[in-house]
């Protein structure tokens, strides 16, 4: 079988494109759901922190955190159903366990540091979520690591330098940004 160099180049390009598309499809197939879930939770939680008394807002956050942990676990289990390993759902199950453990670590850290005010509570949750996000990025799609780091940076800057606008920034830029990014990832695939 003989082909010209230009045909060889075309074939190699087709291979490259297909491999990249496959990698992207596998990695983005569940990542956007995490983003949308946590984006909505952030938006609701931070708006609660802005408008509700701090004690109520703290409880709202705890329940939102539980909800987010459970939804993340379900998403992890259901991820990549189109692709399975010889030991089915092992990776999904591990992702689910990771998020549940992260949730318990977060709750334990808050318990140890208690009493904390609303902003400190929110910052604890943000720190743990962004750790989870970056870990998922390293595991599934490296590009999303940068978004996680950007969100972490924004949170820290808002917390230390713009405390009066912290909740608003987190609700609309943080939460809204995650929802938009999640929709972008979903539509790109």
């Amino acid at each position, binding site marked *: 079988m003989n082909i010209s*160099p230009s045909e060889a180049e075309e074939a190699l390009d087709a291979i490259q494109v*297909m491999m990249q598309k496959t990698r992207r499809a596998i990695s983005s197939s569940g990542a956007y759901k995490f983003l949308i879930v946590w984006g909505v939770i952030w938006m609701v939680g931070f708006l609660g922190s802005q408008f509700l008394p701090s004690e109520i807002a703290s409880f709202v956050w705890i329940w939102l955190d539980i909800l987010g942990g459970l939804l993340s676990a379900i998403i992890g289990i259901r991820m990549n159903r189109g692709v399975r390993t010889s030991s089915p759902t092992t990776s999904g199950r591990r992702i689910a366990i990771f998020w549940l453990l992260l949730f318990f670590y977060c709750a334990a850290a808050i318990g140890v540091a208690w009493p904390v005010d609303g902003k400190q509570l929110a910052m604890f949750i943000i720190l743990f979520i962004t750790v989870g996000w970056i870990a998922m990025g390293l595991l599934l799609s490296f590009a999303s690591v940068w978004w996680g780091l950007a969100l972490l940076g924004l949170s820290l800057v808002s917390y230390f330098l713009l405390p009066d606008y912290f909740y608003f920034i987190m609700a609309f830029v943080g939460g809204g940004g995650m929802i938009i990014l999640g929709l972008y990832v979903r539509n790109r695939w």
Partner: protein
Amino acid sequence: MAELNETIHQTVRLRIMAALVTLAPNEEVEFIYLRDLLEVTDGNLGAHLRKLEEAGYISVNKTFVERKPRTYVSATTDGRKVFSEHVAALEAILKSK
């Protein structure tokens, strides 16, 4: 020197193999997932998968998941080896330009 493989070189089969070798050796992809990824019809994909299966380059595993029939496809060890040889042959042709 690595040689081109006529079975794999066909455009759709080349893309199928590229997608399958991207997965880990212990992973397999569902037929529908692969069809959507390649943007081909059921019939077209089925015909090309048969050719690759006959050549021993892929493995087709029909099973039931939650009582629904599912077909999973994966590259065999031989398929991965032949594909990497094919890629090496393509690169050699390009270098000789």
